């Protein structure tokens, strides 16, 4: 008896671990947008969560429409994913151009307020065009999965983790191995010197917003698939949790965003599983406050910062 009880505990633990990785990966994808933008222009882009919401909506709209055109469900998903990421990338570039670029020489507070305004504007835009009610996601695309005793892994989770990993590897290659990635890192380190070697920093800033929003859009679709629906205000809470993840990892640091996202995801899932589901949202905020109080530079803070954007 004792042995089997032990196994139940073990399986429960493994299940939580898998769920934690899934959710943590999603937070990491959103956190990357905060951290990359912060790395380049030292702005906390409060509107970032709205790209996540917009991506979730564009995803469900496209999946439904493509399915009605008779496309294979996987093709629908892949195409919707790519198009939503592209849409949010363009949206973010437009937001940056309209709301942040004119304030390049202004105080940080002015830009921050502009970001808050943009967040409200985008969220209300989504509400006015898509309504206040939840919009269901066609979750049957990725239904089914594996089971080992009490541990179950849905195809959806495999899809989410696999896609997250792919995007992270892709981003890593982009930032650390390509010419444009070098220019992004150079711009974040010294804008004057970047200009003196011929880098157009406005272009780099624009690209950074596009990449961050594209990743957030992918996260929005994953969350839609995972929870089965999207809502116009869905960007707010995951946005703050991902922000907490970025701060925990060390804002401006790409590896930090990944670690922070995984930790926040794990803590949330384990807290819900072992303490209480009702308070699961609280833990990210406790971590955020704790980090800001005890170690504002985060885990990958200033001393080991060679993976900053």
């Amino acid at each position: 008896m004792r042995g089997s009880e032990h196994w139940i505990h073990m399986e429960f633990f493994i299940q939580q671990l898998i769920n934690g990785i899934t959710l943590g990966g999603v937070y990491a994808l959103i956190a990357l947008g905060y951290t990359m933008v912060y790395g380049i222009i030292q702005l906390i882009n409060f509107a970032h969560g709205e790209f996540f919401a917009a991506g979730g909506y564009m995803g469900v709209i496209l999946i439904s429409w493509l399915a009605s055109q008779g496309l294979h469900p996987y093709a629908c998903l892949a195409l919707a994913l790519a198009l939503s990421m592209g849409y949010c990338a363009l949206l973010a570039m437009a937001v940056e151009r309209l709301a942040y670029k004119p304030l390049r020489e202004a105080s940080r507070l002015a830009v921050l307020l502009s970001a808050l305004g943009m967040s409200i504007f985008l969220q209300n835009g989504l509400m006015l065009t898509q309504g206040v009610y939840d919009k269901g996601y066609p979750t049957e695309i990725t239904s089914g999965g594996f089971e080992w005793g009490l541990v179950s892994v849905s195809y959806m989770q495999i899809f989410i983790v696999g896609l997250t990993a792919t995007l992270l590897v892709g981003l890593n290659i982009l930032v650390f191995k390509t010419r444009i990635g070098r220019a992004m890192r150079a711009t974040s380190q010294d804008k004057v010197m970047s200009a003196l070697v011929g880098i157009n920093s406005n272009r780099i800033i624009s690209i950074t917003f596009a990449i961050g929003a594209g990743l957030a859009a992918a996260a929005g679709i994953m969350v839609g698939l995972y929870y089965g629906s999207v809502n116009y205000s869905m960007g707010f809470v995951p946005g703050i949790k991902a922000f907490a993840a970025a701060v925990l990892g060390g804002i401006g640091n790409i590896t930090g965003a990944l670690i922070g996202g995984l930790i926040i995801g794990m803590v949330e899932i384990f807290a819900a599983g072992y303490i209480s589901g009702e308070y699961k949202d609280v833990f990210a905020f406790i971590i955020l406050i704790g980090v800001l109080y005890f170690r504002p530079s985060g885990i990958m803070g200033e001393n080991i910062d060679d993976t900053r954007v």
Partner: protein
Amino acid sequence: MADNITPILELKNVVSAYGRIKALKGISLKVFPGEIVTIIGANGAGKSTTLMTICNIITAVEGDILYKGERINNIASDILPSMGLCQVPEGRRIFPRLTVMENLDMGAFFRKDAADIKHDLERVFELFPKLRERRKQLGGTLSGGEQQMLAMGRALMSSPKVLLLDEPSMGLAPLLVKQIFDIIRMINSQGVTVVLVEQNANLALQCAQRGYVLETGTVVMEDEADKLLTNPDIRKAYLGE
């Protein structure tokens, strides 16, 4: 220099300001192709501001900046390197978290000619063998002298026509300073026009053909370098006599 040659770089009554405070109060100077021209002056005279204004990091509020006869006041900073106008700024400004190799690559950021870039890289490694040894190291971990070499190497990767150097000797040991100045002469002998800003007036005037003396945002004297070197006023004010 003969009057019938067009200067490759010319400033006409350039005024530049930080907020309401004018740092350059109408500077005029000419640099002819192939020259080494030095700008000397005390700390705070406006030497760095002059170079930053030429590169449009600080936009001139009055006056004309001409490069190869064309007014460049309104050309964005990030376009100038591709036109052949490059600067090694004060303090070197190495990208600290890029490797030495990546720093050098940034110098060639705007270039597409892969074969020529490779050739220039070899040339930089020949001038500064240390950089080859340290190419995988982060820029921020180099010593001051190595950072100066990297900064100059990075500028050479842009294949400049005119190279603006801001206090390349700053903070370096005498032996390194000599080495850096030898390399400045070598770069110049290979056809690069050099504008050399220095507080070390003695060294700068020995290296340059002509010099300008800057005092609180104004050119107070210009002459052949050897004449400035023997000018009693200059010797008293800038050469510590």
